[in-house]
């Protein structure tokens, strides 16, 4: 092969690989996963962890009340449980109160746990799907749920109904306001149904995504 062709080949090789390297580095740096509108990655992660107690939180990363909820649950659950693989958490950040993707990384640090994955969902459709699943009159965010180990998310257009939920919204029952201690007690109750094998755990993002999870 002539020298000019080799040079051209090398140049094109560099051009072709640069985006892949950039994308890979970007994925490694982000402490969250960007979801598509169909929530495919979240659904895959949810279903990959059937058999475990799963928590799903819908939060706004610039909503101080939501951040306080994450912090409270960190103290009430995660700081005490020490990376229990039977307990898997999905934190979905939505664009409420002007939140942008750039706000997710800071908020993702509030829960420190190997089996917790943070997501950025830019359309906010998850709040609408949860509203439909719950039969609620309002859009659901700042919404905190627990799913029992048997729950599966089979229909992509319909979220499963959680076995327990709390909220911090003005127009839902006040006796369901997020209380981290009550929430943690519900988690404990469900965990009693799951064998305490330490070998079953895998971070939820391992179910299909090659993006990083939230472990800081």
């Amino acid at each position, binding site marked *: 092969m002539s020298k000019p062709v080799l040079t051209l080949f090398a140049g094109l090789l560099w051009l072709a690989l640069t985006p892949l390297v950039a994308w890979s580095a970007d994925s490694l740096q982000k402490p969250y996963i960007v979801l598509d509108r169909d929530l495919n990655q979240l659904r895959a992660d949810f279903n990959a962890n059937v058999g475990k107690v799963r928590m799903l939180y819908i939060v706004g990363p610039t909503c101080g009340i939501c951040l306080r909820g994450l912090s409270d649950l960190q103290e009430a659950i995660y700081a005490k449980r020490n990376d229990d693989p039977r307990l898997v958490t999905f934190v979905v950040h939505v664009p*409420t109160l002007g939140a942008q993707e750039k706000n997710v990384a800071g908020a993702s640090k509030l829960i420190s746990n190997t089996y917790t994955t943070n997501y950025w969902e830019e359309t906010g459709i998850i709040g609408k799907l949860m509203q439909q699943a719950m039969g609620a009159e309002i859009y659901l965010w700042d919404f905190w749920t627990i799913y029992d180990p048997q729950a599966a998310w089979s229909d992509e257009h319909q979220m499963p109904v959680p076995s327990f939920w709390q909220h911090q919204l003005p127009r839902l029952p006040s006796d369901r306001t997020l209380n981290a201690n009550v929430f943690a007690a519900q988690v404990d109750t469900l965990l009693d149904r799951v064998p305490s094998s330490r070998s079953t755990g895998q971070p939820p993002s391992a179910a299909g995504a090659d993006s990083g999870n939230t472990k800081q």
Partner: protein
Amino acid sequence: MSKTLNHTLAGIALLVLPAALSPASGAEPDSAVAPYASEVPSYAVRGDKSGTFLDEDEASMPIAQSIDFIVDQYLQQRGGYESLKSIVSVDYYGTRHVGSERYPLQRHEAPPNRSRILIKISESSNFESIRSDQGIRLEGSPPGIGTEAERVLLKTFDFYGTVVDWKMKNYAIKRRGMEKLPGVLSWKLEVDRPDGYRQILYLDSRYGDIVKELVVNARGVPIVEIARHDFRAVEGVRFPFAVEYKSPTGEVLASDRLERIEMKRRPS
């Protein structure tokens, strides 16, 4: 076209194709079908939960909640504005700890911003600091804290609290997002006062308590840090029963442990 060139072009095609299909090759993933906040009702995009604007600065966790929201929470946890304004004096009784030394401490506070601290150093000597309508007076050397920091604490003393009536006092407050302190997620506020002092306040986002405060002088030099713990309600108002004073480098200078707090209110 030569065979060599054909192979080269085929190789290029194989190399370029994956790059063209990679997530980084386009703009935002699904940007055409997933517009920002398209599924969020307008009331939740902005303006809900008293949140209107985000912090202007590069806070690590910027927030949408307004300063008024945070101040209101502080007031509610102290029994409400009218209840707070009905307090005419507070007396504190406890002990100042400086290293292994202990000194009996009494403090009397009254509106508008009067304060008298009496610390018994020995059988025959006391430290006394007074802030009155006539100004500030120190007698003796304050155990642990130092005269400069003690003066600054007296100058910046607010009987009802820094954030109460902040607009009337011509204080300028900026939000600085949220910050996680040990076990507490706090609202962080920066208060610029007309006297040139600046206070960085950390308010417990659950209870509104000012759990940490940094006082900075007019030249931007940090003077003293105050950490407050062990909050308990006294007649509906939360008070810290443990207060630590630290140097700007974090060294604990002194800590006050209160045993009793007495409050007097205006007759209703």
